[in-house]
């Protein structure tokens, strides 16, 4: 074990350490509260409808996230589904979930689950756009974007 060089050097580090840790902790709590309060920029899409929540629970139960992404976050085996309903329409979206397609498995879901899932995906798509297909790209992706199909 290396002994402390001089007690005063150690003391000064300890003092600084306490101060810095306290400051960081306070900053972190304030920042976290800020993140918890933020519901995104599309205020009209800030919350799911009850049906959307049901769809979300099915999404979680069926573990769709292992293959799919929202806003580029998730698994890479399947496409990003952020705006899938505006891209394919509700009918086709429901059809793919019902029957599977290519490597997308048919998960044998009952019709009401498929309906809830489609509503969930539609409402998710109203929160914003991903990916941003703009050339040349900017700095941050714009937060206020026209939704595809609107």
């Amino acid at each position, binding site marked *: *074990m*290396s002994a*402390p*060089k001089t007690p005063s050097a*150690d*003391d000064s*580090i300890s003092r600084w*350490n306490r101060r*810095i840790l306290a400051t*960081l902790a306070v*900053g*972190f709590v304030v*920042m*976290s509260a*800020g*993140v*918890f309060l*933020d*519901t*995104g920029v*599309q205020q009209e*899409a800030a*919350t*799911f409808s009850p049906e959307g929540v049901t769809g*979300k629970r099915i999404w*979680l*139960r*069926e*573990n*769709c*996230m*292992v*293959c799919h*992404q*929202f*806003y*580029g*976050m*998730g*698994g*890479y*085996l399947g496409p*990003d589904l952020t705006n899938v309903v505006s891209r394919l329409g509700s009918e086709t979206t429901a059809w793919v979930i019902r029957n599977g397609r*290519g*490597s997308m*498995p048919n998960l044998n879901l009952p019709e009401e689950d498929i309906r809830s899932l489609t509503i969930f995906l539609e*409402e998710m798509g109203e*929160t*914003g*756009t*991903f*990916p*941003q*297909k703009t*050339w040349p*790209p*900017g*700095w*941050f*992706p714009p937060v206020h974007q026209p939704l595809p199909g609107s």
Partner: protein
Amino acid sequence: MTPPSPRHPATRFFWAAGGSLLLAILAGAWAIQMLAWSSPGDSIEAFIQLRPIHVTFAVAWIFLAAIGGIWAYLPKALNVSLYSRRLTQMQGWLFFIAGVLALAGYLTGNFSGREYLNFTWPASLFIAAGWGCFFVNFFSTARKSTKPWPVYVWMWATGVVMFTWTFIEAHLWMLPWFEEAPVRDLSVQWKSYGGLTGSWNMLVYGLLICLLEQIGGEGASRSRKAFFFYWLGLTNLMFGYAHHTYHLPQAEWIRWMSFGISMTEWVVLLSLIQDWAQPWNREIWKKSPAHRVPRAFLAATSAWVGINLVLALLISIPTLNWFTHGTTITLAHAMGSTIGINSMVLFGGGFAWMLSRSTLSRGQEKYLWSGFAMTNLFLLGFFLILVLAGGMKGLGMVQSDWSFSEAQDHLAPMLYWAGWMAMGLFLGVLILLFSWFSILSRAKS
């Protein structure tokens, strides 16, 4: 004081860590061949189970081996005795039950549906209880020290506290207020995963600094510089997570905060460049030839820290993030840091401790080196291909408006080779694991 027991607590955790890693790489190898070699129409349904098994047990390996390392070195470093052996046993059993519950859930199709913590709430409860034991035992042990803590004990303490916070944060989605708000939920989810990664990094990097002191006599763990980097690391852990969420339609300040904080990591890179030759300095190696095995792992770590830091810095620059986000570059980032950095430190720490209680025959050593070389070489190949494939996909998506299937077609040849690299990596880690188990089984308690 606790009475001596036949098994050192570190041993149990090292066994459990090795077992978890074995499970993780088996599931990982099976899963990656689907990503790399399946053709459209092949059934990939098993991926629904394989991916969570891989992720959960890879993360379990990191935590268990880091905790083993802490039990191996903390009492010695502070010159105190362990607060309670019984609590370490309880912690071990609670984690074991959590692991069995998680695995049973995955095999029977019960998921939480969340990325990193894909097990259902009973497993979460056991993890929380086990962590509670760790929390009490860690702080009760460390508090016995009459001298100020070296920086790595602060890092461990930070990891223990931060995990507690992020684990709670990662479960907030169960409350309606989070569940019902799409952007809030995604934002909090990825914030918590940033903290989760940060918390295990605190445990692992703490172990790295502790090892440098223990095996190399580099007693810098009480210096101002060491504390400066600890504070910088903690700031990044807390505020620098959001390069994963630049694309979320969330409040503008969150992105700017994260971007600004991430950029402070350039300082870490500069300092690393300044010291880059040190891990390979022959004089240090000659001074303690007995430590050549852990030294090699630590030297590999420092190379991987450099490589990963460059990638992390680049993907934190918003314009570049347009191209890298949602591509296999994120996968490269995850693999490079969990295998190249975390696992190298953990292997180094584990082997250092085991070899101080056991011997290594020539044959075994050769075997170990072959695993070491294979792991690093194939990881590098895997990493580079993933970066290349990700860059191509990003460019194609942003510039040429590729659809998912167009991207798949373009990337198929690269993913094919990524699959072979992953298989080499799998074999390399497998060899290291056999060495791990065989040395561990002969280590005196």
